[in-house]
């Protein structure tokens, strides 16, 4: 199935003035932060400026890529997203030794596998207009899931180092010793998307559907495209979280199945 997104989404034009008007809502957030001494005013300011600059820049990049219609440029953009995603997620998983490489591999494989599958099955056309936004969503959601999963794994290995070493002392391999933690970490990485998928349409309207409705698309098309994306993302985050955990769990141990950071005696 190919959703006729391009045909229905070009009917909206947003001016910079309208974007500026939306800043009124940001002002409310800043005033609330000041009134309650939450200390977020500076962060809110940085967020506003960064989001404006980053999205404007990526808008120009996407325009060029759409105009050029080059597979190489699409691949380059998604590769850059994967590398930045791995760098960003690494900061969330600081208790995991050498987390960057497992994250890079897991985001790369999640992006390649899911995009390959949706293109191979003919769900989307192999054109920049589909691959770039879907790739961005896949990498972004995969990054969050992998970061949350590894963050949880790092905390659990640290907190349960006595129990892990006690099972190693009974002849367990390092993989066997962390198996109970892997289950919990995988769950942590995926639960947010699973829960939001369960409640979608009831408690909130997901972004793609909202964007398409605002752009004037038919509600049926908006719903169907959103469903495709939710299912694609479920696959992507499970691949990313599982692969990140599988690759990163080895980094807590030496090849002789010893904890690199054993519990304090």
């Amino acid at each position: 199935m190919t959703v006729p997104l391009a045909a229905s989404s070009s009917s909206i034009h947003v001016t910079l003035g309208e974007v500026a008007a939306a800043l009124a809502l940001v002002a409310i957030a800043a005033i609330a932060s000041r009134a309650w001494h939450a200390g977020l005013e500076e962060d809110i300011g940085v967020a506003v400026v960064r989001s404006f600059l980053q999205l404007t820049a990526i808008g120009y990049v996407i325009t060029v890529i759409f105009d050029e219609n080059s597979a190489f440029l699409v691949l380059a953009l998604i590769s850059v997203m994967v590398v930045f995603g791995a760098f960003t997620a690494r900061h969330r998983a600081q208790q995991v030794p050498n987390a960057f490489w497992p994250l890079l591999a897991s985001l790369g494989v999640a992006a390649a596998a899911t995009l390959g599958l949706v293109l191979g099955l003919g769900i989307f056309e192999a054109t920049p207009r589909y691959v770039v936004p879907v790739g961005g969503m896949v990498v972004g959601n995969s990054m969050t899931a992998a970061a949350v999963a590894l963050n949880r794994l790092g905390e659990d290995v640290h907190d349960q180092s006595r129990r892990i070493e006690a099972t190693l002392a009974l002849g367990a391999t390092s993989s066997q010793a962390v198996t109970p933690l892997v289950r919990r970490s995988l769950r942590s990485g995926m639960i947010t998307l699973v829960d939001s998928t369960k409640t979608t349409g009831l408690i909130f309207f997901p972004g793609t559907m909202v964007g398409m409705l605002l752009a004037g698309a038919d509600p049926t098309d908006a719903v169907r495209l959103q469903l495709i994306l939710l299912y694609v993302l479920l696959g992507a985050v499970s691949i990313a979280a599982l692969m990140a955990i599988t690759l990163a769990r080895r980094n807590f141990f030496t090849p002789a199945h010893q904890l690199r950071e054993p519990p304090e005696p």
Partner: protein
Amino acid sequence: MLFELEEVTYSRGGNVVLRDVSARLPVGASSLLGPSGSGKSTLLRLLNRLADPDAGRVIYEGRDVREYDPLALRREVSLVPQLPALIDGTVHDNVAYGPRLAGRSFNARTCLELAGLDPTIEDRDAAKLSVGEQQRVMLARAIALEPRVLLLDEPTSALDQAARDAVEGTLGRLRARTAISLVVVTHDVAQARRIADHVARIDAGRVIAQGPAAELLPEPPEPELATAEDAT
């Protein structure tokens, strides 16, 4: 000789925990005796390769421990840590853990009996046992592997006197019924005297004395002296 340590040095976080330690632990019951923080628990972990020394060699039955498969070594030389660290599940799940990984048969009730526990607790949630019972389940699950050597890190430090006496009695019976060797880490001179045939005294990461317990830790002539010595 069961274990030989040759000029073993081990550091952790930039601090030298063991410095040029050389020691010999014969078959039978040995004690690593020293104050807390002296490095004796760390030394115990080197014996079944839960850690490797930065320098020097640890030799088990004539071969460097690094020549053994670490998993097989840990099933033969099993360590019971100082604090209970059971897996989630029943007492049976815990006793079964090691033998199942190794694909071996076991008798949970016999292991529990050997560890001084009532075998009827087999189906109870391990997390709901007292600390003393949990410590003995730790012992039972190590016994389930039928190890040739048991490494015990302060096996009674979390226990009251009655439970301590029970665990010491268990270790005595275990030695009488099986050919097992013990290496017991303790800070308690009287306990080392009760359990061990051979003693290595450790202080500040060095072995300061070693030899037969009867020579190194003679019975005190009067009870008052024993009390004073135990407090060290």
